[in-house]
């Protein structure tokens, strides 16, 4: 239906839109891949952690400004990180761990689905939240940083990319260099063996959950700074996209999650712009499928033959 975009400025437009979406996906996928890489659980509730983070920001920002209106708004993210980490750890302790002990991977997946349903409906049952959309107040200046051919790169997008990149580098260093990070990698490779070498598996998983959920709060900050409507189901699609991004980049590979997120954002934007806007979803997934068929372990994943 589309295909009417020809000029350079249209191309740039698609690029910017793709970066805007992709940078958010990437940030979400980074938090997602932390948990995902270690316990191999498609954590359907991760999107809902973002929702929790969003509502925490929504309520803390006015409270914070009431105390002192000189404080920078983004400071509220600290509260959000704490709340999200708490929710994440609680979910792990109350639901995931008991199930992981007794059941299989699939049982854990079902628990995640149930948890997601639970969080969404619980949020709606809280009178202060309710079913209505809320509009988040502006968190960053909406000035353009770069202007070229009437197409502008906004400050929030740039910031999201920068935060995404620093989170990526930070996580990478953490996982590769610190003792805890090495423990995480060990747990993800072989739980039994890591117990043998003296790693406290449960503690490691809890810390992973805390970090992953805390990152959900950071993602919430940048997502709602960019797209200001918040709803109890705001995180569902986002969580799904993050899952797709994490797998596309290669499961458990931190730079892969970032790359996967950006690729999905760009593909989404360029398909709506250049191929078809009504069939955009189909094309996005088609491209995804083609990529996965060519590279079955994700873009950055290595194809490891199965040991016999």
């Amino acid at each position, binding site marked *: 239906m589309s295909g009417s975009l020809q000029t350079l400025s249209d191309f740039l437009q698609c690029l910017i839109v793709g970066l805007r979406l992709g940078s958010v996906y990437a940030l979400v996928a980074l938090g997602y891949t932390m948990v995902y890489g270690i316990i191999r659980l498609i954590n359907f509730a991760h999107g809902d952690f973002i929702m929790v983070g969003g509502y925490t920001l929504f309520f803390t920002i006015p409270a914070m400004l009431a105390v002192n209106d000189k404080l920078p708004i983004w400071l509220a993210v600290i509260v959000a990180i704490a709340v999200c980490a708490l929710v994440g750890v609680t979910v792990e302790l109350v639901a995931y761990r008991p199930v992981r002990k007794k059941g299989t991977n699939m049982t854990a*997946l079902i628990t995640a689905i149930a*948890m997601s349903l639970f969080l969404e*409906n619980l949020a709606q049952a809280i009178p202060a939240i309710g079913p209505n959309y809320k509009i988040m107040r502006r968190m960053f200046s909406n000035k353009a940083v770069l202007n070229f051919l009437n197409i502008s790169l906004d400050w929030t997008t740039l910031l999201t990319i920068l935060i995404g990149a620093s989170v990526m580098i930070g996580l990478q260093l953490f996982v590769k260099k610190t003792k805890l990070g090495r423990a995480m990698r060990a747990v993800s490779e072989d739980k039994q063996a890591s117990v043998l070498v003296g790693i406290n598996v449960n503690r490691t998983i809890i810390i992973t959950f805390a970090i992953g959920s805390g990152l959900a709060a950071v993602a919430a900050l940048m997502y709602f700074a960019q797209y200001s409507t918040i709803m109890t189901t705001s995180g*569902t699609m986002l969580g799904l996209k993050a899952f797709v991004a994490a797998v*596309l980049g290669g499961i458990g590979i931190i730079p892969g999650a970032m790359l996967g997120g950006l690729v999905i954002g760009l593909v989404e934007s360029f398909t709506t712009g250049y191929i078809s806007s009504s069939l955009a*979803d189909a094309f996005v*997934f088609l491209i*995804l499928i083609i990529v996965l*068929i060519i590279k079955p372990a994700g873009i950055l994943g290595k194809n490891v033959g*199965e040991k016999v």
Partner: protein
Amino acid sequence: MMNKNTKLKGYLVNTVALAVLLMAFLILNANFKTPFYSVVFIPSLWQISYLIILAASLNLVLGFLGQLSLGHCGFMAIGAYTAALLSLYFERAGIFTDKKAPVFIVSILVSLLAGGLLAAIVGIIVGIPALRLKGDYLAIITLGFGMIICNVINNLPFAGMEGLSKGSAAASLYKTGLGFGNTLKTKYAWVAIVITILCLAAMFMFIRSRFGRAIESIRDDEIAASASGINVSLYKVGTFVYSAFFAGIAGGLFACCNSSLSTASFAFTNGSILNSTFIVVMVVVGGMGSLTGSMLSAVLMFLLNYVIKNVIKASGMPLFVQNLFKYPMLVYAIVLIIVIMFKPKGILGTREFSLVNTIEYIKGKLGKKAVKEGGSK
């Protein structure tokens, strides 16, 4: 020889039991005419029948083949739209004019079969590339295909309002040629039951066959299976296609009990329990690798959803409970988590409920005394 006898006996006992049940139902259907029966019981029966087929067919892929598919409802959508459009075509072409005429039954069966076949064909197209991948990668690909199918159906120029002629499917297929009301649902309740039984029988025969044993060995160890001469990709795609066929049939039944269709009903998640996520939930709750488990859990999940939403009146209970029941899906989620915690392997695990074994079990209990007296058998 002994084994074969037990098997034969099993088939006989099951057939007799089913025949008795069906007869009982037909008698009930002819005589029992309260509003509750036709307005609540029968529509529930229809919904349960397509949920059972759907859950059992996904179990073939998820439980027996061991591959996670997150787009099963996509095949159901294909079946539903095919059956609806085809029956609408029959109606327009004058093949049946009265929905009570015998020729209508033939149209229903043809439509359902066509729905199943088209779903199976799409299953081949999806399965060949998708099943080269494993685990979470496969999950994503099937998820993607599920979404593509719905997206494409929405954009079909011939599946719209008036069916086959005007508009695209997104604007809802308002009148399907099938689309039974409560009277027709009651009249044709036996169709739903017979089709469910036939589908389940076909699936049972599948897993009891050489084919079934082969795919279970693939699930348990793919490399060992391939080393013992099993063509892994062929068996994988075959199972996927077989499962898609039944999902298509389930879609046809869905088209029968709804006078309107929209792709939102077959999405990845939505407000009801009919979506690709919840079908997975049904299979796991029932027990991966147990067809009877899938049947049981489809029934339980339907009842749970229905009872929370439409039956329970919390007015007499404390305010806390009342508020909880204002959010049916919240209650649903809590019940689901509790069930999973106490039954992490599913209600039946990998065991099958079997009439013969139950009879033997009861016999054994009753006959204990006799055994004591008369010595060993």
